[in-house]
């Protein structure tokens, strides 16, 4: 019987190796899989390349992963947000790499990785510093830049509900990068508020079909990043 639900956060993040590429879902705190990130910190994995839209807030979640020196390189669109001090400080000291990618290009590169598309052309960033050194090409009179798909060894994603097959539904704008990051990872690891019986999720309403998901862990009451940041919490506690 197919059973993708695992019993613990430790099992969920097992096997993340040093040097792995890890995608981490979320747009700000919405959709950020904070418990999975903390479990990844506990696992000790280091030298990671992390793909995520932002770089976290305060000293919890993604910011804590960075603060604990587990991240060699960030691939993201917006590393500078409110209450984001950990990444900027390390970056200014030259202690972490940054690959800055326009948000839509980042999303499409992730989707391409998941869809078996090695590269595609996009108009975004043409004539800007972010397109420098990249191949340019004209289609029907307009100039586009070549961008490559990204795949990850692991993705950490937060969704709303899952069944044992790994079918997922999300909550509101916490959906953001979750579905495409599940597609693009060899091992997509998902925390959900609730695991439901097979057949509970309407097949018309499944957002991420289970084929894109390898492990599910139930975290019924996930922490709110903003509350932890406001309380100046720091992980490990």
């Amino acid at each position, binding site marked *: 019987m197919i059973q993708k639900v695992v019993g613990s956060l430790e099992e969920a993040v097992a096997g993340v190796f040093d040097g792995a590429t890890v995608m981490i879902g979320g*747009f*700000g*705190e*919405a*959709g950020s899989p904070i418990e999975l990130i903390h479990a990844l910190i506990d696992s000790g994995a280091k030298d990671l390349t992390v793909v995520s*839209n932002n770089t976290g807030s305060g000293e919890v979640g993604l910011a804590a992963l960075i603060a604990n020196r587990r991240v060699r390189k960030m691939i993201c*669109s*917006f*590393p*500078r*947000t*409110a209450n984001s001090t950990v*990444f*900027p400080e390390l*970056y*200014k000291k030259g202690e972490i790499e*940054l690959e*800055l*990618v*326009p*948000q*839509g*290009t980042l*999303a*499409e590169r*992730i*989707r391409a990785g998941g869809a078996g598309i090695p590269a595609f052309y*996009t*108009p*975004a*960033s*043409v*004539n*800007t*510093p*972010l397109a420098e050194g990249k191949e340019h090409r004209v289609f029907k009179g307009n100039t586009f830049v070549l961008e490559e798909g990204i795949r990850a060894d692991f993705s950490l994603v937060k969704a709303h509900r899952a069944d044992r097959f790994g079918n997922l539904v*999300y*909550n*509101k*704008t*916490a*959906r*953001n*990068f*979750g*579905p*495409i990051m599940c597609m693009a990872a060899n091992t997509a690891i998902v925390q959900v508020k609730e695991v439901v019986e097979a057949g509970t999720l309407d097949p018309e309403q499944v*957002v991420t079909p289970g084929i894109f998901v390898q492990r599910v862990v139930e975290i019924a009451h996930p922490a*709110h*990043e*903003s509350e932890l940041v406001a309380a100046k919490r720091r992980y490990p506690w």
Partner: protein
Amino acid sequence: MVDQAPKGWTMNEVAQKLALDIPDGSYVNLGIGIPELVADHVPEGRELIYHTENGLLGMGPVPSPGTEDPELINAGKKPVTALPGAAYFHHADSFAMIRGQHLDVCVLGALQISGKGDLANWSTGEPGAIPAVGGAMDLVAGVKHIYVISQHTTKTGEAKIVRECTYPLTGKGVVSRIYTNLAIIEVQPGGLYVLEMAPGVTKEYLQAQTDAPLVGFP
């Protein structure tokens, strides 16, 4: 002429004028900050649909205190609401809307705009600064009409509408119109045409506040 500087319109008045120029039924993306003011001024009888690139069409106003949901936010990561008829979607679909030219209008702020409609609004290019681009480059490359809303000059009085942008570009030749406290300016193939000037603003004063040449006036 600078010593009797007209104040021009308030940014609220500018937002109101910009809102008047967005046709009924448009799909609109509003940048963070001053552009958000536009949503407060949609004329009676018009229905606009707001897109936020983090995955929502049909974004509604700020929720009443105590009803905020940290998983229902806008691109500025602030709590919002969803109107009847809204839809959620993932990031690749959201930027397919943008890149695929399905959005009608995007209103953005600016650091600099050139006379040819080049826009710089993401980085001052200072060494050591943390670069952050977000969705701005995708928006200017994909949305049909890019409107800039901005003070006409910087806080220290320098021109924002320049001959050539000195900051790193967000996009080249992308801006359709510029709405400032002093004037509404259209970017045309021949140059910058002033459509309207704020009360008390003269051609000479406006040009003095503008580095790029203004080639037409109302």
